[in-house]
């Protein structure tokens, strides 16, 4: 589903974010990317949606070589890769329903489909009662649920999450992780960059540890690890 081979990424100014990084992720896997700040986790996430392009090496996502993907095809790639961020990225002037519907509207889904799917997905994330609330009327955990709903409403093959629990308290984080786990059980591949020891240790999924842009550990059913 996702395959990176000898990927290097050097930003302008000579900062090396990834240095000979390789990974192979199967369909339906749940992978934690862990490591200290600046180890290249966010860069990796950005490569998967072609927000950034590697300086060297190859990136395959959903069977496509991203280097040979023309610019105009990138939106279609992103429809297959849902994204969740630490800061939720919700539109403050739209309601919960509208925020999720927005994701479908802009890719041209018919109104009937939107009217059916949005309440369904909000029910799934446990916000079935709060369709008409605005983001600032919700708790952080609830906002992140809306964000997950938006990323998943389109049933993408892959869901990438960059520190989705970074702004949440431990109890709320557990709720979000349960949600991601459920989504993973539907067959969706999940790649999640995180700092959160407790979550990684309790989930016992594949863990890939990065340091200075290189894989220092790749373990199925791993824990966050010691010393970091």
């Amino acid at each position, binding site marked *: 589903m996702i395959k990176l081979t000898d990927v290097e990424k050097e930003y302008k100014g000579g900062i090396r974010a990834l240095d000979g990084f390789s990974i192979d992720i199967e369909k339906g896997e749940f992978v934690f990317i862990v490591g200290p700040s600046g180890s290249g986790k966010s860069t990796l996430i950005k490569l998967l949606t072609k927000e950034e392009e590697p300086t060297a090496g190859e990136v395959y996502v959903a069977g496509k070589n991203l280097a040979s993907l023309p610019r105009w095809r990138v939106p279609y790639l*992103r429809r297959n890769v849902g994204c969740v961020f630490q800061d939720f990225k919700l539109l403050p002037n739209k309601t919960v329903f509208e925020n999720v519907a*927005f*994701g479908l509207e*802009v890719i041209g889904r018919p109104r009937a489909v939107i009217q059916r799917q949005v309440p369904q997905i909000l029910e799934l994330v446990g916000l079935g009662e709060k369709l008409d609330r605005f983001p600032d009327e919700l708790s952080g955990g609830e906002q992140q649920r809306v964000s997950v709903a938006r*990323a998943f409403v389109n049933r993408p093959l892959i869901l990438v999450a960059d520190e989705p629990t970074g702004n949440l308290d431990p109890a709320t984080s557990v709720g979000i992780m349960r949600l991601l786990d459920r989504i993973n059980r539907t067959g969706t591949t999940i790649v999640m960059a995180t700092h959160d020891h407790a979550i990684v240790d309790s989930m016992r999924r594949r863990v890939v540890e990065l340091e200075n842009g290189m894989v220092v550990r790749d373990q199925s059913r791993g824990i966050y690890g010691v010393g970091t």
Partner: protein
Amino acid sequence: MRIGYFLSETVTNLRRNFLMTIAAISTVAISLLLLGGVQILGLIVNNVTLNWEAKVEVSAFLADNITEGEESALREDLTGFKEVESVTYVTKDEAFDEYKEIYRTRPELWENLPADALPASFRIKLFDADDAEEVAARIEGAPGVDDVRFGGEIIKRLLQVNSLLRTITFVMSLVLMIAAAALIANAIRLAIYARREEIGIMKLVGATNWFIRIPFMLEGIFAALVGAVVSGVIVVGGNTLLFSRMADAFPFLGPVFSFTTGEIVGVLAILTGVAALVGLVGSTLALRRFLEV
């Protein structure tokens, strides 16, 4: 549904940047008004030229001692030229009567003159005023011809002044047009800036660039077209209010200030076309860089 989405987005953008939109619209309107003015000026010059060209004549003044043979030979020559439409003979008496008529308010100019003071002449009407110089040169110095005159000089001057005026106004309207495109670009840039978060999310969930672009382009074209309508109303209104009245008040100006509906529609079509172009250029300028990533 898509069209509905694009239209409502466009309207929202225009409302959010109301003042900037007004500025863009009025710049377009003013520059198009200048352009419209140039077009109308062109029509006027055209009418003036047609009107005056019809009056261009070559006068061949005859020597007092011209023989009858010379006179009829000259008349035959003139009627033979293919450029010549008609030849009229004006006697000394007729010339004097005309002169008296022109200066009827200043009798001191003719009271003491004998009736045969002015020369007889041939008045030569041409098919094309441009040939006046050539025909005049041909009969200059012919036996019995004293002097040859034609009114072409004045028309030449007039055309030169008018073409200069047209060039100046055209350049001015061009500069204003560029300013209008820049203002539209700026209005759109502001609209994009106000909505950068939304656009970021749109890209995130896989909206195509055209889907994001179209409302902004419509916005630019809309502002420009409203400008075109405003200037069009002023052009048409000005024409009916000002020129028609002038034509009524001064009948001799009638042919100069009367335009056919076709001509006015032509001017409006040019204004609208230019406006659409300006709006498109402005919005393309604004959108060129923001969609990368």
